[in-house]
């Protein structure tokens, strides 16, 4: 039996039947990482023997823990105590986390074990993992293609069977778009559903931690473990955390699904469109009521996103001045030290967004850019909440194309930004959304996005689960 291809649920069954031990399982992942990650570069750091030791101590018979002896990978912008946490940036290449993210604490309490930290676009700023300050990650389906981003390392690690699940973070699509490109499930929970304490901030009004998994059931298991309010994050919400795995079989019949008309227009690759339409037909066969819906202002979500995200990022990243974080550059005085540190430590995309955000917030331009973007955000939020008074779910493609080639968009920032065109509206609205693999186009995975109203993750998960079972794809990259 190849242990590395197992889902969380399979592993739990294997443990119960005593088919393998936790150290054996961890060793299987480590061997695979050693063997294959040189071609993929999903990991920035893997903990190796240390995880094996934890596995030896793991109590896999403890039924009260939900994830006993389940190994996982963590996007390297989420703090694991005492471990180097780089956020994919040279400026943090030596930063050792002095405390731990709440999401990691919760997984630890449930018995899960960290295998290592995965690559990302620097501070989450990118859609291809090529903006990492260290190295690009490759797509396990085709190593000449990008894995998507910014959680590209986490998506590639799950797709390549380096781990059964991984954590990512999603500010404008950073869990869902790489999940789509790599053929795995990626869930961005409702804003506030999961504590962001210990997540290195990109845009605080949009950021959210979520799971990348091999199937929907595992996404439900992980979400249940990490969700819930946290005194350390005042934006975390005390909304009830349902038993997501138990709710997976809610009947799909009668579920009202809106196909977002604007998501099927210009820019959408024809092959991707075909795969999505076939999956929509399957939803219909399962008993969902499907209607087209037009959201005329949804196209503004992307420019709104780029203004709000850059503005917030320009404030959030001011702290990397070499005083508390970053390298101490030689300088005569404090101000020139700030300036030199940022100049040396940040990559081109980070500098671009800091500049764009600073511009949008600066005197004379604030009303025209930041303020106007906030107002348009309100219009979009109203449009979305009106849509959710008629529909349970809004559905469309996760991304306009399959994984693009390494280098294809790197020199044109605007082209790269357009990769987020269908995903940003969930962040702008604070809504939950999933990317579910629904087929292949030209040998590369295609993800379908299902978005729901706030805190309606159980609707997303149950519909996605039943569609997944109906499609029964068994996607495995030729690695």
């Amino acid at each position, binding site marked *: 039996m190849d242990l590395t291809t197992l889902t969380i649920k399979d592993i739990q069954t294997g443990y119960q039947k005593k088919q393998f031990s936790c150290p054996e399982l961890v060793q299987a992942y480590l061997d695979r990482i050693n063997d294959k990650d040189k071609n993929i570069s999903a990991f920035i750091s893997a903990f190796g023997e240390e995880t094996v030791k934890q596995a030896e101590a793991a109590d896999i018979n403890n039924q009260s823990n939900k994830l006993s002896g389940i190994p996982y990978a963590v996007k390297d912008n989420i703090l694991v105590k005492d471990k180097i946490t780089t956020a994919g940036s040279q400026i943090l290449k030596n930063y050792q986390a002095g*405390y731990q993210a709440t999401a990691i604490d919760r997984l630890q309490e449930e018995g899960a074990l960290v295998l290592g930290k995965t690559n990302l676009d620097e501070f989450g700023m990118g859609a291809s993992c090529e903006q990492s300050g260290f190295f690009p990650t490759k797509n396990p389906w085709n190593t000449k293609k990008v894995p998507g981003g910014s959680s590209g390392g986490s998506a590639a690690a799950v797709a390549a069977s380096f781990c059964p699940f991984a954590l990512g973070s999603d500010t404008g699509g950073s869990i869902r778009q790489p999940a789509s490109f790599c053929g795995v499930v990626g869930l961005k929970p409702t804003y506030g559903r999961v504590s962001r304490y210990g997540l290195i901030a990109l845009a605080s009004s949009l950021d959210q931690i979520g799971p990348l998994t091999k199937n929907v059931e595992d996404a439900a298991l992980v979400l249940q473990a990490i969700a819930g309010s946290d005194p350390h994050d005042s934006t975390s919400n005390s909304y009830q955390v349902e038993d997501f795995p138990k709710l997976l079989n809610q009947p799909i019949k009668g579920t009202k699904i809106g196909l977002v008309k604007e998501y099927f227009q210009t820019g959408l690759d024809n092959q991707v469109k075909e795969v999505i339409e076939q999956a929509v037909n399957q939803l219909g066969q399962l008993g969902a009521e499907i209607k087209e819906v037009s959201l005329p202002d949804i196209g503004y979500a992307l420019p709104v996103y780029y203004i709000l995200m850059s503005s917030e990022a320009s404030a959030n990243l001011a702290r990397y001045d070499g005083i*508390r974080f970053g390298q101490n550059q030689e300088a005569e005085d404090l101000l020139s030290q700030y300036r030199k540190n940022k100049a040396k430590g940040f990559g081109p995309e980070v500098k671009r967004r800091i500049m764009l955000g600073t511009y949008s917030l600066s005197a004379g331009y604030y009303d025209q*850019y930041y303020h106007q973007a906030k107002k348009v955000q309100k219009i979009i939020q109203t449009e979305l909440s009106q849509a959710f008074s008629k529909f349970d779910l809004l559905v469309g493609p996760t991304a306009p194309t399959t994984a693009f080639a390494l280098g294809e968009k790197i020199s044109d920032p605007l082209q790269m930004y357009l990769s987020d065109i269908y995903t940003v509206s969930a962040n702008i609205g604070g809504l939950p959304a999933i990317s579910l693999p629904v087929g292949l186009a030209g040998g590369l995975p295609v993800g379908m996005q299902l978005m729901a109203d706030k805190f309606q993750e159980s609707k997303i998960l149950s519909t996605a689960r039943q569609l997944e079972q109906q499609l029964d794809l068994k996607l495995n990259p030729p690695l």
Partner: protein
Amino acid sequence: MKIKKEEVEHIADLARIDLTEPEKKQMAKELTKILDWVDQLAKVETKEIGVGLKADLSNVWGEDQIQPFAETKSLVDSFPEKEDRHLRVKGIK
């Protein structure tokens, strides 16, 4: 709207970041392109939208509680330059 090199320099000053001459040139070009694209937002009628930027979330109140923070040492250890428990910084000119 075309972003000039002087504007790039002004914004870089505000952001406290040094840019090289080639970076300034490139930045002017890219910001111009990105802002031209963002300018589509100006078309949206927003007169009716409230100017307050209050989030439509309610405040979460709680009693102040003192909780010991156990990680002081690891935070101090992460200072790039220090004297005892103090963070050393350059002088302000």
